[in-house]
């Protein structure tokens, strides 16, 4: 497996967060009784996106091995279906959310682990975002249980 550049990883992560945020926002429109929770999930994704992008842009000078830091990630394995069919139930949509929260958390943890020696601060941003997605997964599961 060949290395993935920092730019490619960050771009992929930013798109995941954008799409996840859109997913929750649309769901919030469709299911007003869960609006507050769903909007807070979207906000977490927005904050993660800003944090990862800002950290990358502000520390790319330190990340001098940016092209050679992440060796064993195949981004295709982390493709996520964020589509929301018109007639999807809240429970089914949240199950989808549980799946992608786990997938995103897993990707971010892997990136953080692999790049911690050479990308330092960027790795930290991924580690924190992974933790937030894991916490969020639990919150989504709790919402399904209600």
């Amino acid at each position, binding site marked *: 497996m*060949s*290395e*993935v*550049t*920092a*730019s*490619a990883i960050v*771009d992929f992560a930013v798109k995941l967060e954008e799409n996840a945020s859109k997913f929750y926002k649309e769901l919030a429109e469709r299911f007003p009784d869960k609006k507050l929770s769903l909007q807070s999930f979207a906000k977490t994704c927005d904050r993660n996106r800003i944090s990862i992008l800002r950290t*990358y*842009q*502000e*520390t*790319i*000078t330190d*990340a*001098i*091995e*940016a*092209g*050679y*830091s992440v060796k064993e990630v195949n981004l295709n394995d982390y493709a996520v279906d964020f589509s929301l069919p018109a007639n999807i139930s809240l429970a089914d949509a949240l199950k989808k959310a549980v799946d992608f929260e786990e997938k995103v958390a897993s990707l971010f943890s892997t990136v953080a682990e692999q790049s911690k*020696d*050479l990308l330092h601060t960027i790795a930290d941003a991924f580690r924190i975002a992974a933790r937030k997605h894991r916490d969020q997964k639990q919150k989504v599961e709790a919402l399904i249980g209600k």
Partner: protein
Amino acid sequence: MAILEEPIKEPVNVMNYIGGEWVESKGKYVDIVNPATMKVIGRVPRSTADELNGAVKAAWDAFEEWRRTPPVARARCLFRLKELLEENFEELSRIVVMEHGKIIDEARGEVRRGIENVEVAAGIPSLMMGYNLEDVARGIDEYVIYQPVGVFGVISPFNFPFMVPLWFAPYAVATGNCVIIKPSSEDPISQMKIAELAEEAGFPPGVWNVVNGGREVVNAMLEHPDISGICFVGSTPVAKNVIYKKCGETGKRVIAQAGAKNFILVMPDANLERTIAACMTSFFGNAGQRCLAGANLVVVGEGLSEQEFNNFYDKVVKAFVDSASKIRVGYGLDESVQMGPVRDEEKKKRIIGYIEKGIEEGAKLVLDGRQVKLIGDWPTNCFLNPTVFTEVTPDMTIGREEIFGPVACIMRARTFDEAVDMIHGNPYGNSASIFTQSGKWAREFRYRVLCGNIGINIGIPAPMAFFPFGGMKNSFFGVLHGQGREAIRFFTEAKVVIERWF
């Protein structure tokens, strides 16, 4: 992987920025070509000496007012410039990819480095403070004040078109001087963008000027009696025989940063995996067109038996060549790519000449980058893949001269002392690095090696904005260096005041 959107849609007509006006040059225009796609992305003038003289006049016209502007107000212009650079961070980075050829991670790193210099220079109210002592004799006080000097010229190279002028210009204007930047005519677009942002940031007309061109503009700068100093980054022959010499003759201050041949030592106790990752960036980042790029990798056999040393050498070579052979080469706006093209076809030809010379002189070519293999369907005009030679000796042309391309020379040194002698035998002294887990060898290296920038487990020892960019021997001509406090000192005159009141 998809190509990031190109910010330059139509060819850019590069203009001069003189006295707060955007001026079309009367000089001949030449094309600016994206080296990855070979498409024309702009045209740049070869401005005339008269146009440069006009900029000098505009700068001096602005000087008196600007030097009287309180440092805190000058700093606010720099804060605004920093904000504007941040707002345009991504566009500027992609312009750098298009005009130069480097990959997007490298371009963003370059833009960040440039911005960091603006940030540091914005601390000018503190940085420019003098010092004093009361009662140097009874009732007499003495103090030093730092004052701006006048108008400075900045002549920058093609390899870091955005960043290098920002090693100097922010400090020049922060200290109350005016500046005239002559960008590289190969990739001047990002400098035009910076000037647009400087205008928007509120620098008064004449404080920040850009005159595009080639030798005629450089000569006019050097000859002009009203230019107080020159900051230059480029090749050693020009730095030494033209810039430094001429500045001496005309009484100008000078910072002339020049060529390099940087050695990287790998000691037997080095963490090989991380050393190799660092070396890939060092030797092949920016397609090797970096004055801090690794050029000679010296495998050191200190403390090893002959057999152990041979095994260690083979292990390093194998890891290095394996990694280098996997580097993905292509257009820098493709995020999967790890190395872009060299800047133009002439440079590629020159690098190939060195590769041929290496073969001719008996070095062993173990990875031939002339066999171009690209990610994506791009014209191969300016592309090379990584090249690796082994069994190189310091007296070979490729072991001695600056290649400025993606060519690595691997050498053997039986002992640490022999490796240090190799470094000292080379006329350049820009940077040198050592990879080791031993504090003893690291300290010896830092203490003894005659190079301006030392890396300990760092492949590219590039000083941050708040430290000077070092350089010794044939890699630097001058006294004070660019960036940080030395730049503040360079751009100011120390005036001593001795005061007594009757």
